[in-house]
């Protein structure tokens, strides 16, 4: 809590330093006494703010050390703090920033005689430069530095976001101060100067808001990435709160722009009340900005939404997948969306029109609502808190085999042995259990299935008290494999140019006493031919592969052979065949349980590309597949542009 407060104070003071300095630069040098008084105030506050930034920075570093070391005591342990500063990237950034702030503090502490305009610009510009550098570097130690890939872009965008925020938000209090001084009876001399400053700030702020919105959108995509992430995680909700406050700030700012435009005329006719009102509004805007900075400080210590499990807050969601089940609704949705676009266009037009604005506004609103009313209902799908959760258990043969066992124990009575909805108890049920292999399963997320297994659905009882969460995820993985196996019937014995994007379930295996390896370790490196074989019929094929193994290896292939009886003594059985590719002696049972869902033939070969997608299934007797065809397939895969690797979560 103290660390969070320190972070907030640190961020706020850094932002105010930047904003004050840039506001001074924007307003420009002057010789009016009140304006010079303002200049001196800002510099004096700058000294104070630098001291606060340094002090709270030290506290924040101590807090971060405690988090990194995983013990609260580390915050007071000098050696741990030194270690953090010298050995981590965040520490190095803190050191450089601390150094910059020290230089800034020293620079501001020197009393300078700034009679000359060039001197004034040099001095204030230096202050702004140091402040901007210290603030911009925050990005190099934040969440942006952890974005993969494209770390450099992420940091650059975050720097732009921080600096734009610093100049805009930090400039507000300085401007409010100037307006306040100019409103006083004694400050009349500075009024034209204040008006000029407000105008320049207003123009700059408009550009800065554009930068803020664009960089903010990019950051949101990088750190949150999805609607569930925005709505279902702490980080996402903080961002929503921040956006709400930001919207309020924008509304105020839009009003202020009008006030600034109204501050017309020469010095003599400038109205004090208008200026006072502007000053008050700018102060409110600055207050909102402080709130935003508090939210930002909290966000910086919250794990980014992309790395958190979202909890979906609504009981429905919108899904285009719903149209796959009911294709007849596609045209409805299409027409509805077009009507909605028409309405939106009318709304936009109303902004541009002066006459007829009201009719256009009302008509556009009605048309937009009607269009959405037509387009949205068909897309509505049931949703649950776990809908967007990623499985805690990976899509791995061990989990699928476990799921298969659990399915046989708990589910086959109704769902049938292969999930077809044809179990012995199914006849008594109305409606009948659905076919779990059917393609419409893809409409549901893994999180949906997880929820139904735990909480039941219609006639299906809840298994939440009988099965642990991991067991439920095992079942979900089994269902995913079942569905994939159904789709995999479309795969031929040779590679088709268009992949079906079927991820090959991961598996782990070992040959004798050697360390275990997994399919995933080959990802990005080797194409894998998984051979499930049965002796003696398969022996000729295994030997043939062994004889061509040198050629196949140079084409980037690894062969993994699995005996269909999961015999631990498989190597001895092969005798003097001189087969040197891995023959699985440990882990075979799980691999068989999983891959036999795809094909139960006694000899079957699965070709898995470098990205981990299943590309061909050749089932058959001992003949298996022609090795020359395999060579052609490998050459085709080697010539392919690498498709994107599969995401970790399921849809």
């Amino acid at each position, binding site marked *: 809590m103290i660390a969070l407060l320190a972070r907030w104070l640190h961020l706020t003071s850094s932002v105010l330093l930047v904003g004050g300095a840039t506001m001074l630069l924007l307003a420009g040098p002057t010789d009016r006494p009140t304006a010079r008084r303002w200049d001196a105030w800002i510099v004096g506050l700058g000294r104070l703010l630098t001291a606060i930034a340094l002090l709270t920075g030290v506290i924040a570093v101590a807090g971060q050390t405690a988090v990194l070391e995983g013990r609260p005591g580390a915050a007071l342990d000098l050696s741990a703090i030194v270690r953090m500063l010298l050995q981590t990237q965040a520490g*190095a950034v803190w050191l*450089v920033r601390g150094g910059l702030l020290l*230089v800034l503090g020293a*620079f501001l502490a020197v009393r*300078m*005689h*700034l009679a*000359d305009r*060039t*001197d*004034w*610009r*040099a*001095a204030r*510009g*230096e202050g702004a*430069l140091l402040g901007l550098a210290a603030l911009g570097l925050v990005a190099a130690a934040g969440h942006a530095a952890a974005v993969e890939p494209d770390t450099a872009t992420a940091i650059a965008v975050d720097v732009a976001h921080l600096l734009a925020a610093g100049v805009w938000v930090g400039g507000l209090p300085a401007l409010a101060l100037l307006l306040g001084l100019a409103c006083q009876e004694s400050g009349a001399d500075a009024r034209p100067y204040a008006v000029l400053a407000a105008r320049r700030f207003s123009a700059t702020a408009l550009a800065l808001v554009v930068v803020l919105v664009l960089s903010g959108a990019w950051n949101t995509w990088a750190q949150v990435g999805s609607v569930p992430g925005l709505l279902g995680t702490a980080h996402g909700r903080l961002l929503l709160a921040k956006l709400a406050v930001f919207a309020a700030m924008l509304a105020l700012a839009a009003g202020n722009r009008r006030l600034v435009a109204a501050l017309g005329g020469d010095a003599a006719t400038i109205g004090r009340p208008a200026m006072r009102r502007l000053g008050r509004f700018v102060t409110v805007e600055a207050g909102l900005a402080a709130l935003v900075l508090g939210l930002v400080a909290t966000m910086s210590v919250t794990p980014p939404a992309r790395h958190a499990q979202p909890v979906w807050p609504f009981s429905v969601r919108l899904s285009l997948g719903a149209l796959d089940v009911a294709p007849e609704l596609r045209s409805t949705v299409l027409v509805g969306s077009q009507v909605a676009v028409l309405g939106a266009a009318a709304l936009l037009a109303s902004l541009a029109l002066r006459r007829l604005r009201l009719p256009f506004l009302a008509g556009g609103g009605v048309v937009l609502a009607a269009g959405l009313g037509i387009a949205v209902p068909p897309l509505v799908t049931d949703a649950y808190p776990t809908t967007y959760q990623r499985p805690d258990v990976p899509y791995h043969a061990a989990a699928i085999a476990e799921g298969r066992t659990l399915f046989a124990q708990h589910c086959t009575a109704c769902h049938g042995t292969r999930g077809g909805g044809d179990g012995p108890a199914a006849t008594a049920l109305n409606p009948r259990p659905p076919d779990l292999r059917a393609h419409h399963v893809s409409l549901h997320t893994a999180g949906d299935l997880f929820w139904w297994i735990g909480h039941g659905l219609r006639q299906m009882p809840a298994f939440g008290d009988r099965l642990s969460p991991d067991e439920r995820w095992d079942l979900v993985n089994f269902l995913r494999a079942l569905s994939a196996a159904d789709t995999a019937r479309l795969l031929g014995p040779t590679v088709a140019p268009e992949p079906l994007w079927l991820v090959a379930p991961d598996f782990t295996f070992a*040959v*004798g*006493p*050697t*360390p275990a390896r997994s399919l995933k370790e080959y990802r990005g490196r080797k194409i894998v031919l998984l051979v499930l074989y049965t002796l003696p019929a398969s022996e000729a094929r295994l030997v043939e592969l062994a004889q061509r193994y040198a050629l196949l290896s140079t084409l980037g292939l690894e062969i993994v052979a699995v005996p269909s009886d999961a015999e631990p*003594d*498989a*190597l*001895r*059985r*092969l*005798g*003097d*065949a*001189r*087969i*040197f*590719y*891995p023959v699985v*002696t440990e882990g075979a049972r799980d691999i068989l349980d999983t891959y036999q869902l795809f094909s139960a033939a006694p000899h079957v070969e699965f070709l898995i590309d470098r990205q981990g997608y299943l590309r061909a299934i050749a089932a058959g007797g001992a003949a298996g597949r022609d090795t020359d065809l395999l060579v052609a397939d490998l050459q085709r895969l080697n010539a392919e542009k690498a498709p994107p690797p599969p995401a970790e979560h399921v849809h």
Partner: protein
Amino acid sequence: MRVWKAVLLMNLALALGLGVGWLWWGRQAQRLAQDLEAARVAAVPTGEREFRSTGVVRAGLGDLGLLVITHGDIPGYMPAMTMGFRTASPKILESVKPGDAVRFTLRGTPPNLAVTAIEKTAP
């Protein structure tokens, strides 16, 4: 002195300081990498050495005097892989069959190593 000149000098000093810091940081990292490399090289003793590992026999190539073993990590020599090793005597070659889980000893001056002893670890 005029303030703007002082600021200019200060900026030069800052840029110089940051540049030197950057270079020093790079040098430090480079030196660490070099030290690591030197330590790695120094850690590899020359002359005859002995390694022990476990594995499973894949084949005995009597004609070449080679024993093909899928072996685990051999620390300081090579990672786990399937590899043909020279045998010190034909007796070693004859004492094991494909599929045998074994514990074996390699002796020699890398990379010229030979299996000098082997025993089965499982019946």
